[in-house]
């Protein structure tokens, strides 16, 4: 695609004109440091926006106030104890006001929303995620952090497995296709590339229909059977069975486009003059491929993959919901359904951190493979 050849902004060297004397290690460290600070600010702003949306710009507070008032009123009017019965309506009203004020102060509703929103932000950034109102973790805790930590491994397992498979399979497929340029397989992958316009969850529906509903080969969803197998080996096999369909959905939805893109990069780079030169020198195909094609293409490929990863992360909520995968995405969806603000913000915070970590991780790899960063190029890349 057209934006494929561009690098993520800032992934080019962030320092202006480094002197020739600075060592590679210092330059890479400086580069990653600058990126880290920028990513942190990005995360802060992103999370603040999420806090605002999740609280409906303060409207959730109004709902809570209403709920508190209703509860207190019901409690006061339902109380049939003798001293209550003797109260006048005016006294009861006063009592309600008092109790509402106490309750609002207890959960901090007495301060304006804007002030509290920065408190929320600080708590979110420091992973002090508070308590859920409606959800509990499997161990019975109401701490959002525990709920989310429990859900994190399944998410990392699914997305890690799928994306690593995707990256290596498409890389080698792309390399293979660029060698067999113009062959039947090559043309077939080009023809299949547009199928990647459908997201992973969509292929998930088809996979469930074929392999779970029609053929009854694999489970419809979930992560392990209920009750889970007791022995470790059986547990692993069972987990794998449940992993196949969602992971395949992720791989199928992106593999053809990725392989096509990689192949195109390889072709573009192997038509460079220096490759011709290497051929003229009589180097072996293997050497040419490794040193003159794969090497310069790596930064571009990694950028490509970073964009894909970020895009795919966004779909976690729906894919996990479709497959009943007990990960972060599905928890987020459940929390939204329950208006559980603490869990929503918590899940988004974890997502933001995961995204930032993904970008940062790829940045480091990028810095290591891009000679412009390593040797110290000049200015920004465009």
């Amino acid at each position, binding site marked *: 695609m*057209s934006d494929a050849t561009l690098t993520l*902004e800032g992934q080019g060297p962030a320092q202006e004109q480094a002197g020739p004397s600075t060592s590679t290690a210092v330059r890479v460290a400086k580069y990653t440091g600058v990126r880290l600070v920028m990513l942190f600010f990005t*995360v802060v702003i992103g999370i603040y926006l*999420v806090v605002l949306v999740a609280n*409906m710009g303060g409207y959730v507070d109004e709902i809570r106030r209403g709920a508190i008032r209703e509860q207190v009123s019901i409690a006061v009017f339902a109380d049939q104890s003798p001293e209550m019965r003797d109260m006048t309506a005016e006294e009861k009203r006063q009592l309600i006001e008092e109790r509402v004020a106490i309750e609002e102060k207890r959960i901090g509703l007495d301060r304006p929303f804007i002030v509290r929103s920065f408190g929320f932000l600080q708590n979110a950034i420091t992973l002090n995620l508070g308590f859920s109102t409606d959800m509990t973790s499997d161990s019975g805790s109401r701490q959002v952090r525990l709920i989310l930590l429990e859900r994190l491994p399944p998410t990392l397992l699914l997305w890690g497995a799928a994306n690593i498979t995707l990256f290596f399979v498409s890389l080698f497929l792309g390399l293979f296709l660029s060698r067999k340029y113009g062959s039947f397989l090559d043309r077939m992958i080009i023809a299949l590339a547009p199928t990647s316009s*459908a997201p992973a969850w*969509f292929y998930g529906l088809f996979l469930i*229909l074929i392999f779970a509903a029609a053929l009854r080969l694999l489970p419809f969803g979930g992560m392990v059977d209920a009750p889970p197998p007791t022995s470790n080996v059986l547990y692993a096999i069972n987990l794998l069975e449940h992993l196949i369909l969602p992971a395949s959905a992720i791989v199928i939805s992106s593999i053809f486009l990725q392989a096509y893109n990689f192949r195109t990069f390889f072709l573009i780079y192997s038509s460079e003059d220096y490759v011709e030169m290497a051929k003229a020198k009589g180097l072996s195909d293997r050497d040419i491929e490794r040193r003159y094609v794969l090497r310069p293409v790596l930064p571009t490929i990694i950028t490509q993959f970073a964009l894909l990863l970020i895009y795919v992360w966004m779909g976690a909520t*729906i894919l996990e919901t479709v497959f009943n995968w007990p990960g972060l995405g599905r928890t987020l969806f459940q929390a939204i359904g329950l208006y559980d603000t603490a869990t929503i913000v918590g899940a988004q915070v974890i997502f933001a951190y995961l*995204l930032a970590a993904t970008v940062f991780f790829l940045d480091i790899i990028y810095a290591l493979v891009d000679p412009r960063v390593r040797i110290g190029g000049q200015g920004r890349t465009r």
Partner: protein
Amino acid sequence: MRNLREILQYPTAIIGLIIILGLIGVSIYAVVALPYSEAIRLWRGGEDVWSKNPKTAAPTWVNLFRRQDLPATIKVSSEDESVEKTREVVTEDMTDIDFFFTFDYLYHGFPREISIFFETQYDEKNPHVSMTWLTPDGREIRIGSMSLERSATYRVSQDSTLQRRLPGDLPPHQALFAADPEAENPEALQGPYTLQVSAKVFEPEADVDAELVMYGEVHGIAGTDHRRRDLSVALLWGTPIALAFGLLAAVGTSLTTMIIAGVGTWFGGWVDGLIQRITEVNLILPTLPILIMVGTFYSRSLWLMLGVLILLSIFGGGIKTYRAIFLQVKESPYIEAAQAYGASDARVIFRYLIPRIIPMLLPNLITLVPGFVFTEAALALLGLGDPILPTWGKVINDARFNGALYQGNYYWMLEPSVLLMITGLAFSLLGFSLDRIFNPRLRGM
């Protein structure tokens, strides 16, 4: 013109274009043949609109793939020409009304349900009706008798008294058709059946009309859902909605992105820097979860979602693409010339900078469409579809929640999914070819 001729050299582009034109044709047909208000009335309608449709019936064309046809719905009404209605005055305050519903049953399978809908006219005294069932092999089965309200429905299938009276342990709608009700695997007997309805009315002006409905296993070209609604309504109307959503979002996003990129590149400095930073923040903002939050907390209206989606997509990857091109264009001599004669910033941006990259806008725009169409479906699948409009995503959502896959009602899930797939693929094919045409580096690769 040159570009057009080039497009025609790519067979995939032609296929994509033909499908898109077809979809546009379907959309126009949908809007003309089934006006918006009518479509909403049908889709939001309950028993009053759809009572005579079978529940979760497969589309009729599944019979093409089967050895024995699945029964379709058979309806016989006393207002049909073929049904003879006789009126005989017995005494001064009693009149007999008789009619015979005769029909040929040609299927091996049983109908899913049987109901008889009565419409009566009377002032005070309720009419009384009794029904008898005649099978092709000459058996005569008394179904029952009852006194009628103005508008009454007799659900034969749910009459447990009748079921106990009939031989075998089959529900009534099967026992009435079975060749041998006590066989292990009963099959329907083909041939002419007759339902005899004899009504007694006790007022001279009173009248009774009835309609016999034998719900089949198949219905229409698209089948029906759990609420007996004809899926063709949603599938038909889903087309213009999906196209409008995808195209509006794509046009809105790419135009705004282009202008912002143009402004940023032209002014450079902190404006450009700010745009770059916003793009980075936006990259980390999870689009779908935010849409889900908006849908849950604020409103599920399709058009609000569209607005939010455009807002979240403006600062997407596109900005970088456009920026790179603008940076090149900015250095062109004609821009310098424009500045020399004193053109304002706005004039340079909108008259000289932006028009230069409009040809590159097209492939980008078209490639964006499937993503938006699928996002809409994703929201609907999570139960956040527009509360009023019938969309493909909502049909998929209904199918999932009502266990279409567990019960083998695959058509229910497949029809909207295939339509989504075709739409996504068409735009993707076209965008892909356009990209190769407008991106000379990719040409021939």
